[in-house]
Structures are given as C-alpha cells and as structure tokens.
C-alpha cells in the first residue's frame, strides 16, 4: 500500500550555479556551522501567472470579502433583538446565524459543525491533498495578500533581493516604510473586522472611534493586529512548518492515491540544462531552470518529492508550465498527481486514479452521518424547553393531613421571538395536585415566558398518602397554543421502604 518515495537521498543537491531553495540553504548553513538557534532564511517568491495563480487570486478575494462583509449583513429580528445576521453575543449569551439562534446549552451544534468541518477536511485531504493549506487557510490568504503589498512597493523577486542587499537610502526607506505601513493598516483592518462579529457592527464602529467600546474590543483588535502583522508579514512559512499541527497530522489522511502537487520524476529525469535545437532524446524534460524553486512561497524544491513544508498551492505548476511552453515541451511536468501514478509510469504502465477507496468511503459516511445528525437536530429543535430541578433539602414534606409535598423548580426556556403562555401539568403521581407558592393546590398552573427568555417557576406537587414505592417516576408537561415540551422527574412518596 505505502510506497516510500525517498527522493532526497537518491538525488544529490544540484551543484553549480542556479538559485538554491531556502530549505536547502538552511541545511547548508547547518552543515557549515552548528548553531544553537537557526536564523530564518528570507524567501522571495517570484510572481507567476497561470491557472492556479488565477484561482488563488479569486479565492483570496472571495474569502476576504466573506470575512469583512459578513458582520455588516443585516437580518431583521423582532423587538430589541440584534439585527445582525451573524453575531456571537456574549453579553446576551446567544449566537445568531441568519434564521438560526443558538443558546449556550446548544453549543453541541457548534461542536457538530466543527466535527463536520474536520471530517470534510479529512475527506478533501484524502482526495486532493492539502487544498485547505494552499488556498483557504487564513495564514495562506493573508500571507499572499502581504506578498502582494510587498511586491507593489519593492518589485518582484530580483528587485526585492537587490533592495534587501542595498545600503540604506531614501529609496529603500520609503519602500520599506510604505510596505510596513500598509501591512499594519491591513493588520488593523483584520483585527478591526473581527470584533464586529461580537457586537452590533454599526454601533461598535461609532463606539470604537469615540473610545466608548468595551475594553475587550480594543484588546482583541490589538491582538489580531499584532498577530496578523507578525504572522503574515514576518513569520509566514514558519507558522506552517513550526507552529501548525496540521502538516504533521495530514500524513495520516494521505495515501498513494491522494492528489498532491507532484514533480513527475518519470518524465523530468534525467534533468539538465537544455540549449535550443538540442535533442530531447535520452533525457528528461526538466531543464533545471529553478523556476519552480523561486516561485515557491514555502522555500522548498518540489523536485525533492513530497515534503512537510509543501502547502500544495500549485504556484510551481504555473511556473513550470510557463517554462514548458517556452521550450516547446508538454505542460504538467509538475502537476496534481498521485505517488501511485508516478511509480506506475516509471515502470512503463498506464496509471489509474482511484477516488473511491476505503479511506474516502468512511470519511464520506462519517461526514454524511454527522451532517444528518446536525441537520436533524436543528430541524427538530423545540421552541420551548423544560427542565425540572427537584428540591433536595428537604426531599419531601409531610403536611398536617399526612399528604406529601415535593418542591420543584421548573426552568422553562422560550427560544422563540414571541412570548408564550404555557399551562403546566404533571402525570404519573396518583392523586397529585399541582400548585405554585402562594396559590391553592388544584388551580391550573399557568405562566408566561417572555420572548427569548428563561423563566424559573417554583411548583409544589402534593399527593395523598399512598401505598407505593419510595419514589415514583413523573412527567411534567408544558403546553402552549401550538407547542409543548415534557421532562422526566421523580416524586418521593415519603413511604419508608424496608432495608
């Protein structure tokens, strides 16, 4: 099942001229002098053009738009309830998502959503590799945006390297300064957008600039500004290789049939420079131009095989395709391909692609199961919720005529946006009469719960002396005009059971 493609040991690092990958430089440095701490080798990814780059731009715009626009979408709700479509209301202890409203005790829906997200991630990884890392991860998206800003101020790869090496001058100062200023502005925009998810956006915007916003808003904004600036501007690929657990975990989801950004060794080797007019017979298509290496935002050489650092962004595919077009060879020397296909082709067989595998089947089944559960749960939420808390001290009280009274606190939650008047009943206790404190037993027990509120209602259940077990099961029911809810509880009869 598992084919280990250890290309690192088979292919010695290329000698002679040509840019080295950053990863290779780090290895080189370590070889030269053993150090306690490893400095970061700066990476200057070169701009590429092509299919994957266009998809990445599109997804960058899409994901950032979702992030910045969502808190500003309005959604009418009755009364004093917030009119923000997506709002995590910590003060009011509610989570609003368009027509859905979740209470803190329904956090399991969020858990379900996270489990769904995790399973979907597993499935996508098993099928297509690290699509999440390459296209949708905030770290990737914001780093891409930051590199775009960097390029606007300092130019492409070569210009940036020259500028870094150049002595300080006015030109270098304004370029570097401008870049950092825009970076900080973007970071502030990121942190600023975040806080709108937790408080009414238009109100908070006003409060924020007049110093009246809660201190948590300022702290959250400052924290996200700092992390965005540091992670996307300075840390970049180090976040993925050192901090993120996902690159380590993904190995468990990938197998030989997962699509990954792959250098097709079978076609590329033996690599070497190629002059116009020379024959392509007896050699590989790779002309060792390092276009894939200089385009890589992670600073690796994809020709070394699958690596922990590789986020599968596909930029090396675009870079290589450009070169292949120029030298008149077919595209896709680097492509989304499987380890299995590479091995098959190398052996002279036609590879097949297997998308339906045990792994993908059980990820799909698990995902479908959890999704169905969450949807079913959401569809069957009762608008009213009832819980009965028994009095524990004392558990029961004997009245003057020998009858026994149990006290309960009923917690009635009204999850709707309209007030509900409910009538409380109890079944299961022979001859039981229900009452509320201050009222005579036997009269109907009614109460009104305001919209979107929980009400605690004290009730007494009084039953004549009975010949029964020490406790009998009982059921409380609340009935409103168009809905009902029940809860199970216990009634203590006061009968002493023989030991």
């Amino acid at each position, binding site marked *: 099942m598992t084919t280990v493609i250890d290309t*690192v*040991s088979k292919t010695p690092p290329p000698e002679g001229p040509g840019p080295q990958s950053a990863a290779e430089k780090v*290895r*080189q440095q*370590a*070889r030269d002098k*053993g*150090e*306690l*701490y*490893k*400095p*970061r080798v700066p990476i200057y990814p070169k701009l590429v053009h092509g299919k994957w780059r266009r998809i990445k731009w599109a997804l960058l715009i899409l994901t950032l738009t979702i992030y910045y626009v969502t808190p500003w979408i309005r959604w009418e709700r009755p009364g004093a309830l917030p009119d923000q479509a997506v709002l995590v209301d910590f003060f009011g202890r509610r989570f609003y998502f368009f027509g859905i409203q979740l209470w803190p005790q329904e956090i399991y829906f969020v858990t379900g959503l996270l489990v769904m997200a995790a399973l979907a991630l597993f499935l996508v990884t098993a099928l297509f590799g690290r699509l999440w890392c390459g296209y949708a991860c905030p770290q990737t998206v914001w780093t891409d945006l930051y590199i775009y800003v960097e390029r606007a101020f300092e130019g492409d790869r070569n210009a940036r390297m020259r500028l870094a090496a150049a002595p300080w001058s006015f030109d270098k100062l304004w370029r570097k300064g401008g870049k950092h200023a825009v970076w900080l502005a973007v970071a502030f925009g990121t942190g600023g957008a975040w806080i709108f998810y937790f408080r009414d956006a238009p109100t908070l915007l006003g409060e924020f600039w007049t110093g009246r916003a809660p201190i948590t808003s300022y702290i959250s904004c400052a924290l996200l500004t700092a992390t965005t600036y540091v992670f996307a501007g300075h*840390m970049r690929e*180090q976040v993925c290789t*050192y901090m993120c657990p996902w690159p380590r975990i993904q190995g468990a989801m990938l197998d030989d049939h997962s699509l990954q950004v792959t250098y097709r060794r079978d076609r590329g080797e033996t690599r070497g420079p190629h002059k116009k007019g020379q024959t392509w017979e007896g050699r590989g298509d790779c002309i060792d131009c390092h276009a894939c290496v200089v385009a890589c935002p992670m600073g690796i050489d994809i020709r070394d095989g699958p690596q922990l650092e590789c986020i599968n962004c596909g930029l090396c595919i675009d870079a290589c395709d450009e070169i292949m077009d120029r030298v008149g060879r077919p595209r896709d020397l680097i492509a989304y391909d499987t380890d299995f296909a590479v091995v098959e082709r190398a052996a002279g067989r036609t590879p097949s692609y297997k998308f339906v595998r045990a792994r993908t089947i059980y990820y799909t089944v698990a995902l479908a199961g959890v999704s169905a559960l969450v949807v079913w749960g959401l569809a069957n939420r009762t608008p009213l919720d009832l819980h009965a808390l028994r*009095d*524990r*001290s*004392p558990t029961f*009280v*004997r*009245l*003057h*005529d*020998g009858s026994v*009274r149990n*006290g309960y606190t009923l917690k009635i939650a009204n999850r709707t946006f309209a007030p509900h008047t409910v009538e409380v009943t109890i079944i299961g206790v022979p001859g039981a009469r229900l*009452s509320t*404190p*201050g*009222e*005579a037993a036997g009269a109907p027990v009614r109460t009104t719960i305001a919209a979107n509120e929980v009400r605690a209602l004290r009730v*007494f259940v009084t039953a004549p002396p009975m010949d029964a077990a020490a406790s009998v099961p009982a059921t409380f029911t609340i009935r409103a005009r168009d809905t009902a809810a029940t809860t199970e509880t216990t009634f203590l009869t006061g009968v002493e059971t023989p030991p």
Partner: protein
Amino acid sequence: MSERERDDHTGTETTGHEWDGIKELDTPLPRWWLWTWYGSILVAIVYWVLMPAWPGITGYTRGVLGQSDRAEVAQELKGLAAQRHAGESRLRAATLQQIEADPELQGYAMQVGASVFGDNCATCHGAGGAGGNGYPNLRDDIWLWGGSLDAIQHTIQVGVRSGHPQARGETVMPAFGRDQMLTEVQVSDLTEYVVALSGRKANAAAVGRARQTFVDQCVACHGAAGTGDVARGVPDLTDAEWLFGSTREAIHDQIWNGRNGVMPTWEARFSPETVKALAVYVHANAGGVAEPVAPAKAPGGEGVAAGAAGR
C-alpha cells in the same frame, strides 16, 4: 560528554545519545523562538516596574501603577454595601404583604433570607428548613406559633422561651412522669390514648383507662379533641406531625419528661429589614399561602378558646 557526530542526511549534529541504533538529532530551534524568550524577559521587567512584585524585609515593591488587591476588595465591599442599602430601604418601606406581592422585591428578600437562614437558622432547622427531632419543620403547613407572614416575623423577633420580655411560650409541657404527677401506668395509658387520637390503632382498654386522666391533665391546653392551640403554641395531637417523634416510645418519653423547645430572640442580632426578608423567605418556602392550615377541625375544649387572646 560524548563525541559530536554529524548526520549525513540532514547535515545536523546529533546529541551523541544512542538507543538501539537510533540517534537523536540536535536540531537547532528557530531564531524566532529565541526572540520570544527575550520578549518574555522584557515583559517580566516591565511588570516589575508597574506591578507589586518583589518582597523586601519591611514590605514589598509596590509598582508605579499602585495596584492592590486589598484595596480592590475594599472598594467592591463598599459598592456592595451601597447596592444593599437601596434594597434595604425598599424592604423597610414595604409591608410583608407588599414585599411578597412585588416579584422583584420578593426575589431580593428571598436572596437575603436564604443567606441569613443558612448562617443562623440552619444549625437547628436544617439547611433546607426541614427541621428534625425537637426542631420544627419550616417547610410544611403545620405551625406551632402560626404560619402567617406576621406570625413568622413575630416569632423570629421575640423567639420562644428566649428570655425576651414578649417571648412566646409562657405555657410549658409538664414532666408528668419525672415530676411524679402521674404514675408509670397512667403515662403508658395516656400514650395509647394519644396514639388513638392521631387515628392509629391503640389498646382499647388502655385508652378507656386514660380518658379521665386526659380530661384532668391535658385538655386544659391541648383541648378536648386534642387539636392544640396555635395562640399558645400547643401542638395538635391529631395530625401527622410529631415534633418529638411519632413512635410510642417517643410519645411516652415526651409525656414523662415534657421537653419544651427554645428558640432565641433575633431582634438584637438582625435589623428589622433582615427579619422581614427572613420571614418572607420562610413563608415562601413553606408554600407561601396566607394562612397555611385552614381551621378545619372545630376547637376542642371551651376553656381553650377563652384563654387564646393576645399573641
């Protein structure tokens, strides 16, 4: 220290340790890790300057921000007192019935009551107020001294046999056996009579013998029917509640030794507002009805009703 060795594959030195042929790479930490560490040291130094940090011989470095947990607690207590003041003045102005009718004020009284009850009353009456042998159950509908809001408030204020000039409990249960007012046989017969009063099976011969003793000794307080007298705190002998136990042994013991309950006066200890809150709390826990037990049974002896004036 063992000899340093370089791994060919990664170009990294090994630590020199080896377990069954597996060697550990001495992979260098990334540089940013080092900067994070320096940053933490810097934060610590800034903290020392701003906040209380270093202990000395006579005190400690106070920090330029002047932060003090003790001062914060004092401030919070002051705020709490101010908050309570508002509630207390509302309790003072309202009658017990008004407090009970106002859900917000009642809620406040219940909280005050629960706290005070737990600290002072629970010792005898139990955490939930269910009482115990010799200590009345405050959750049921049987009240020795009356279960209305005003009666409860008064009982809390003056106590029972507490030494307070207005204390409840001028009547006492005599120790018929111990003080040799009745013989052992008479007390045993009376026990059967009392058991019969509460509707239980009893020795008919003994009940017959005790009838005259009951009229002579007990009716003056407990009434001819044995239904007691709330005004004087005389228990009803016909209901299901027994303060000192329901068994024959317990009843015999009570006639023989005549125990009398004592409850302290709380007037000196609690403010009038606290007593009000406590009365509302106890009343609500017992069911919250205006008069817990409707006088379903006709009063027993003629002489009983006559002496029932006053508190």
